[in-house]
């Protein structure tokens, strides 16, 4: 059984249908990239996968015992986080909250998990640094660590590199690939950049208010739609 199975799903936003005819599956260990222009329905689909929005048509089925608590999320950054006073450790620790149950405070287990994840994204020397004093790339790493602190099963990354310079973006891609390949974490990444999808991910879902393409990245590169969006690239 698949981790997540989407069958004939459609979503509305403010009463209007923004995306429909969605049919795809997410398997354990996948690295899926969802691409499409702004307004193509990516963000709405993400809300659906996170369980924050119910499809008005079709179904989203969680398999293999997947629950909402096993989905980690790297949201797009908000303006209010720019001046937020918090250290990297405080931010990452807050990711472990869903494993706290009814206990009021973090235990040694949560604190250890947070430090492990901070180390994994290479931020251990900066663990006490205020979040707002980090570079854009470092902030994204810290938020990735927080998502990993919440779960090792499935991560949903919403435009993780959109505000990064090319070097930081390459680092981030490298880190995501490493987490996927070496640690078996299933990745769903949203991007408006089809090149990233074709060359970083294993599977591609191309949206334009409906599903234009769903399949392996290799097939995407060869497909008509892939060729059109990737331009004259012949790799």
């Amino acid at each position, binding site marked *: 059984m698949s981790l997540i199975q989407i069958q004939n799903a459609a979503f509305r936003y403010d009463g209007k249908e923004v995306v429909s005819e969605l049919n795809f599956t997410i398997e354990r260990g996948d690295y899926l990239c969802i691409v499409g222009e702004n307004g193509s329905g990516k963000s709405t689909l993400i809300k659906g996968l*996170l369980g924050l929005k119910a499809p008005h048509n079709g179904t989203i089925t969680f398999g293999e015992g997947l629950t909402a*608590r096993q989905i980690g999320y790297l*949201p797009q950054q908000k303006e*209010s986080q720019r001046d937020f006073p918090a250290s990297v450790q405080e*931010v990452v620790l807050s990711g472990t909250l*869903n494993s706290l149950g009814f206990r*009021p405070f973090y235990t040694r287990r949560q604190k250890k998990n947070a430090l492990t994840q901070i180390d994994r994204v290479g931020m251990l020397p900066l663990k006490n640094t205020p979040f*707002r004093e980090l570079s854009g790339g470092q902030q994204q790493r810290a938020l990735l660590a927080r998502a990993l602190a919440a779960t090792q099963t499935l991560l949903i990354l919403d435009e993780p590199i959109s505000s990064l310079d090319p070097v930081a973006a390459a680092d981030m891609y490298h880190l995501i690939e490493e987490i996927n390949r070496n640690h078996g974490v299933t990745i769903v990444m949203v991007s408006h950049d089809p090149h990233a999808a074709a060359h970083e991910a294993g599977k591609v879902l191309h949206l334009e208010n409906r599903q234009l393409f769903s399949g392996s990245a290799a097939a995407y590169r060869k497909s008509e739609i892939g060729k059109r969006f990737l331009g004259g690239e012949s790799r």
Partner: protein
Amino acid sequence: MINILLEMLSYPFLVRAIMVGLLVSLCASLLGVSLVLKRFSMIGDGLSHVGFGALAIASVANIAPLTLAIPVCIAASFLLLRMSESTRIKGDAAIAMLSAGALAIGVMVVSMTTGMNTDVYNYMFGSILSLSKADASLSIALSIVVLVLFALFYPRLFAVTFDESFSRATGIPTRAYNAALATLASVTVVLGMRMMGALLISSLIIFPVLTAMRVGKRYLSVTLLSAAVAVLGFVLGMVVSYVYEAPSGASIVCVNIVLFLIFAIAGAIRNAITKK
């Protein structure tokens, strides 16, 4: 300074007022960290105006003021939360409407019945003399409850304050915690209102955290500094109020303005040094 404080503590009614004031200031400053960082500062202001309306009606109807004002404010806080979340109506405008409306209704009710008496004046601008013994015990008990709940919810409040969408996505019941925050804020606003006045109570929520953020850079340090600033501001404000025979609420706010400026300068100097 010490002599003045000792002299103040020789009056039983002042001791009572200082106890209540200290606890309420602590509650307000701690909840203020979340409220300000979540961009909910306006909710505190809205609540104080709704509280004024409720207190005015209670005093006309001869109901114990707190028993009416606390539930009304809690109900209003849920409404204000809904308003600020809603994207369809402009949240801030709706809050401004509700608070002005509640204030106006309170004033109308009073002026058409008993007329503007000292009770109502006190609710508007605050007075430490308006605190009865029974009120004081209730206020102390309730503020201790607020402080304990704040401590128990600290990790959760941090999570929903820093990033609500992440928390919700990972299965945290963020709405419940927002409601808890609004409830605690309502109780604090009503308790503090008689001392600070409806027009000034929101400053207890807003000033200490903004002052603390000039210097503090981590959440825990901002929280602790905010509490310390609130206590300092309250004690100094009471001394100023006693010595110059000025209203307590306004004195406390003025001291808070000075503290804010001192912290802002200290923060700017530190930033200038560390950048070199």
